[in-house]
């Protein structure tokens, strides 16, 4: 191979670097569909649209379980006694302090709507059990009260609230 002048050396360097840069951009662009295809597809997203729940058939004291976005949702029609138990608590002493008023919609405090997944490791707690008249999780013994707040056991947080609103006094839309 004959010797090459330094001008041609830098021309070759430029070509290598330019090709490499365009190639790198190409590889990055090519990766996008392969990563994106694992995200939820259009049918899954459509199946996760908001659901309307009719509250009329739910009796006083009854807890109903529905699914939204594949998660169980507890809808609790609380009696006056259960509402009083939820309110009559020293909030600061709770493991995850939160007053009952922040867990219900104003004017609809007899309705508690929470995601039915234990905040410890994800089991579904059992209704109307435990010392606090709320839920008891059989997996590791967490206990929730009538506002779905953690009282005893290893769970760190209160049962989470899904996004929901009252469409009318007897109908809510979750999601």
């Amino acid at each position, binding site marked *: 191979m004959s010797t090459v002048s330094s001008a041609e050396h830098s021309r070759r360097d430029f070509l290598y670097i330019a090709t490499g840069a365009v190639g790198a951009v190409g590889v990055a662009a090519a990766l996008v569909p392969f990563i*994106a295809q694992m995200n939820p597809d259009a*049918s899954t997203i459509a199946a996760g649209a908001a659901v309307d729940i009719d509250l009329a058939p739910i009796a006083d004291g009854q807890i109903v379980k529905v699914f939204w976005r594949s998660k169980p949702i507890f809808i609790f029609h609380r009696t006056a006694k259960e509402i009083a138990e939820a309110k009559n608590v020293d909030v600061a002493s709770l493991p995850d302090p939160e007053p009952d008023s922040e867990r219900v919609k104003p004017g609809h405090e007899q309705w508690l709507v929470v995601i039915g997944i234990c905040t410890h490791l994800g089991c579904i707690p059992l209704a109307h059990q435990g010392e606090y008249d709320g839920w008891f999780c059989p997996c590791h013994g967490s206990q929730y009260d009538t506002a779905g707040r953690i009282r005893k056991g290893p769970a760190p947080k209160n049962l989470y609230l899904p996004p929901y609103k009252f469409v009318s006094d007897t109908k809510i839309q979750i999601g």
Partner: protein
Amino acid sequence: MSGHSTYQPQNKALQWLEKRLPIGGLMHSSFVAYPTPRNLNYWWTFGGILTFMLGVQIVTGIVLAMHYTPQVDMAFDSVEGIMRDVNYGWLLRYVHANGASMFFLAAYIHMFRGMYYGSYKEPREVLWILGVILLLLMIATGFMGYVLVWGQMSFWAATVITNLFSAIPGVGESIVTWLWGGYAVGNPTLNRFYSLHYLLPFVIAGVVVLHVWALHVVGQNNPAGIEPKSDKDTVPFTPYATAKDGFMMVVFCILFAWFVFYIPNFLGHADNYIPANPAVTPSEIVPEWYYLPFYAILRSIPNKLLGVIALFSSIAILAFMPWLDTSRVRSARFRPLYRQFFWLFVIAAVGLGWLGSKPPEGIYVVVSRIFTAYYFAFFLIILPLLGVFEKTRPLPISISESVLGAKA
């Protein structure tokens, strides 16, 4: 080829690894320092293109498998779900389907290159036979992949091709039942085709490793068909062959992208957008274009068993080329008679492909039979005789002489 490696890594970590697993040295000696004949032309870039296409098919196939359901009532809908709902699903499906066509296009060009330049001749017989095995694996994989869509063409292609084995006397019917897993093509058939369609590409990858190994042991052929005699006849693989391969890959991808983005269903058959109906056979059953030449050969023989034998022989006969061709001269550049018969062969092969798409009646049958006769005559009569009777042109003294002229 063997000998002290020229790979000396500067980096301490790489030196550490090199002492324990010399993969850096292997990559270096195989794809960087590897002595490549300096007269290779662009027909030599298709091996790299084929490896790239295998990667494309495997990667798109694996992500498609995340969304596909291999069950007779759900398969077709799952493919439509990929097309309509999965993010970029339409792109992945079209790349995979058109990728199969591009894979076969590159394979046929690669094979025609081998036939023209005598790359199948001594000492490259095993390399060539591994290539024939790769072609067979590709054919099987492509066939099973097409069945997975579970459209009308998928189902009836599966029925026709599996029924070929019933031509075998005695055990034929049992073999077909065994392939089906039932009394007809059905869910068991679909499930096992899915499993094997996922498996075979990795078998192909393994045979590709053997193919490249066999290549590197004997060295590449070149357009002059004479072996390199000195270092002047070769250049290091990187940057010369790497750049040539890379450039041609880009050109190839432009053609590939043209199909994927502008005419993604051009090479397919509209009837495969109809869900499979075991009660209704479509008016014309045609395989994808890359199987058409073999399909035409099958249909041109009026006897069922002999037609099946002709079909399988048309592929198997390729493996015998190193021994059927008796000529001492490799490259068709120096074989004026062989060159003409070779191009007639290409016309016959492409012609058979076109005829395979036509209904088997009238003039089409006559011409198919003529082309089929030529196809087999080329291997069994012309190749052996040419070696004896052909007057070849004088070979150049060396590769560098043929490239650089007398100044070399």
